[in-house]
């Protein structure tokens, strides 16, 4: 898993490149936690364009980050999920807390 981030016009963008499963969960969680603890943004977009695989362990990681940001009143969105990720998001209701943006 490769992660990258940038802040642009008050939005923190975090991009995930690779596969999000039990193996990559801990690193992904730690990375996201670190950049989300930064300042200079009021919204977060998680870009999944290059995420080639995800399972329910990934849902746990994303919902965990959502809960932390909710305490700070910072909304989190997801962008460009694959059709496989999209189905998991719909099934688990993730979009209800992390809406999809394009």
């Amino acid at each position: 898993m490769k992660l990258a981030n940038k802040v642009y016009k008050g939005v923190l963008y975090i991009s995930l490149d690779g596969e999000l499963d039990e193996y990559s969960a801990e690193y992904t969680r730690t990375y996201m936690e670190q950049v989300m603890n930064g300042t200079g943004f009021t919204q977060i977009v998680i870009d999944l364009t290059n995420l080639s695989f995800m399972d329910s362990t990934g849902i746990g990681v994303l919902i965990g980050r959502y809960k932390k940001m909710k305490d700070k009143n910072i909304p989190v969105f997801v962008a460009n999920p694959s059709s496989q990720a999209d189905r998991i998001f719909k099934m688990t209701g993730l979009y209800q807390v992390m809406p999809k943006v394009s």
Partner: protein
Amino acid sequence: MEKVLNKFKMEVEAQSENESFVRGVVGAFASQADPTLDQINDIKTAVSEAVTNCIVHAYKKKGGTIFVECELFADQITIKIADNGVGIEDISKATEPFYTTAPEDERSGMGFTVMQSFMDNLSVNNNFGGGVLVEMTKFFTKEKAADLASGE
């Protein structure tokens, strides 16, 4: 009974590095029957969930052996994933959406629900002698899957 076109068995160590390995192997094996890309992704996702359960729940991240067995037919694949771990106390509860024994570890509790949704058939049983056996079937033809869903 339909003819088995191909089959394999393997044992892997229950460590998370092997998740992508096992789902890759099963996905590649299934591709011999010429399924759609979506079907392969469904299979890989379900396998990943079952393997995660072995690593995280059955063996509590302390390692052990995961047993994988697949049979390929012209129109379906059957996948068995088993462990010798702690077993599941209440299977019907464990398979409920959002039920998890480890919420503090940010587990979603959706593993079995994903397996159920992505495959056409799922059964979860405690193994005689310990551990859990998960058996899953994926049909490659839409007609078969629809028949099963309507109980025919």
